[in-house]
């Protein structure tokens, strides 16, 4: 039940956003797209070469690179 970064989730798993790293290069955009505290994020799938990763937040499907998932902390 502890906190993890989003890259630790497997496809099909979901968790709630705790916070975004202050230095995350996409911080502003992610906030605007709904990565606010408490929002539910689901990992939908990984691309054929393992990266990037498709996520679902709210009604939006988007893809981030695994390296950009490190700065997103979540909990169950």
């Amino acid at each position: 039940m502890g906190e993890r970064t989003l890259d630790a989730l497997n496809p099909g798993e979901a968790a709630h956003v705790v916070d975004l790293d202050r230095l995350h290069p996409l911080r502003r955009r992610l906030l605007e797209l709904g990565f606010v505290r408490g929002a539910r994020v689901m990992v939908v799938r990984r691309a054929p070469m393992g990266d990037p990763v498709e996520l679902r937040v709210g009604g939006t499907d988007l893809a981030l690179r695994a390296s950009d998932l490190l700065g997103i902390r979540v909990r169950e």
Partner: protein
Amino acid sequence: MTATVPPAIVPTTTVPPATALPRLPDEAACLQTVARLKAAHEPRVVVVGNPNTGKTTLINAVAGTNLKVGNWAGVTVEKREARLSVQGRPLLLLDLPGAYSLSPHTPEELITRTALLDEGPDVILNVLDAGNLERNLYLTLQLMDFHVPVAVALNLVDEAREKGLTVDAAALSRVLGVPVIETVASKGQGTGKLLDTALKGATLGIGVRYPQAIEAAAADLITRMAELPTLPPHAHRYLALALLEGDPSVRGRLSATGHLPLIDAADAHLAALDAEGVDALIEIAEARYARAGDLARVAVPRAEARRTLSERLDRLALHPLLGIPIFLALVLLVFRLTFSVASPFVDLIGGPLQTTLAGWAAAALAWFPLGRDLVVGAIIPGVGTVLSFLPTLLVLYLAMSFLEDSGYMARAAFLMDRIMRGLGLDGRAFIPLILGFGCNVPAVSATRTLERRSDRVVVSMILPFMSCSARLPVYVVFAAALFPRSGSWIVWSMYILGMAVAFAFAWALRRTSFPAEGGGVLLELPPYRFPAWRVLWKHAWRRTASFAKRARTTVLATVAGVWLLLALPAVAGGKFATVAPQDSVFGRVSEAVSPIFAPLGFGNWQATGALVPGFIAKEVVVGTLGQIYLGEQAAAPAPLSLWTGVQGAVIATWDTIKTSVSAIPTVLALPRLGTDTTADQKTPLAQALAAAFTPAAGLAYLVFVLLYTPCIVTVGAIAQEHGRRIAWITVAYQMGIAWGMGFLTYQLARLWM
């Protein structure tokens, strides 16, 4: 202008729900806005919405043929506007580029934000995707920070209902405090009364009440702004909040316009907030999402979990094993479609149509030989060259728009991202490169989908190395002449070599002139949608027409220039226009230049001269080689009677249409690999080439043709997108690389052959 301007009606249903704290707009300012709206001779309605909300389709449905498409000043983002009359009242409809938010991340978003600040909008028409309300409402709430009346078009309601959502527009209108009109733009539903309702009913709405500390800071900044006449009053609240969010583009703009004290004040507030443990950026985003969530729950009271078509399609399209093969197959399909459907038309324009026209011109101008030669030798072929590009471009643009608007391009970017990463690019950059195999021109304009300018420039600069379809005829002729056994291998290796050089060059560019900008990569995967044919056709047609407009001057000038050089005698006693090619200025200049190509194995004036028209379009190289080696003078075609000409043209056109249509089913057949079929019929040109080139020199020539300066039209497209400087640099280094690679090829090939 009628005197009976309808009064702005404030809906009686704007009672805020208990969940939302109403923002009480300053009453005087509110009345002022309403008065301005009434008085505006031609109110400006700006249309704003997230990408993929069907906004373009909606605009097309509303504005129809009044829509004028141009470019925003200084950038290559499309500007769509229409002057309309709604119930006898004129208005200007201005479509702003799609934006997720007003803190700009892309050139498109920057334009939208800037237009909201500077274009003096009287009404904001906000288009929402009913199937994704929460995120769409984030932008709505940000728009409400402007002091401009808002009306909402709730689009794609059909799709939302298919997803199992219950959409209640009346409830949304009630809690948002602005009129909400349900629309299904693709079917024209709700679009008729949209503008009328927007004009009459738009109100300031109920925006977000931010946490007290932030509201206090914003209020202070707004007070300071009141003393600054240069800041548009309708944007004060928005600007204050953007400053507190630390929006770099707003800070940049304000500091550039000399508002440093304002920025200092904002920084002081931010420091104070930070000391209290308040992160304004996060608090503002959370306040907006909290309100957006509340609104969405009212508007969409019931959502069944239903697996959508998009999810099912993605299971296949993004399959771990099948995803990439499916993508490659689709690309192949697009090219086969393009060439099967377009090539009969290309042949028609290049062949019978031009011959017929040339015949008429020759007959009509028989009394004026010089004019006749200019028209027949330069103008008709010049125009013909431009026209012969059009069928290919139209089909390619149609296919491209289909893949884009359907949502598939975003999937392609997702699949290809990993491959492009080594070059400091993201998956989206793969699409222009693939398109480059068809034609470099649309590929250059496709770089617009990339967010960062340096990415756009790098991709445009390596694009011309992708072997476009116009280069294929050159390979085919040489392969048949010099390598009858291994022709298909030669052709394939050209494609591979082009790609290898492109990637190597991107790598080099990244390490020298255009280092990869940092920052994460975010790819949106919008739901699949079947695009409206009308919109696709309009897009493709407009892009093709704008190409023709751009290309005609350059191409005509270049063709006329080559003709003139070929016509000018360089020897004493030579007569203008009848001089033999080798005695023309063209021949002499080519001869003077040709030693440069001696280390590449083809240092004669014929081979060198044929490269020059290749600047216009690379397939012309073959024609010029024919002219030079076989001595086919561009003799005036036999004059035709008007009637025979028309007859011939009609028959040829009909045959073309038949061939083109009958080609469609064969598109689905497997592609024919290689070009060996051409080998059994050694044409006179092939024989001449076999005599003139050693295999090693022929190979070097092909490598040079593959890599040297793209056609003048591509150069024009690069200049249009990125400026003349980048275009000239591209021309220069491609010449250099082509020479270097040609040299290597010749010297290495000589060792083996």
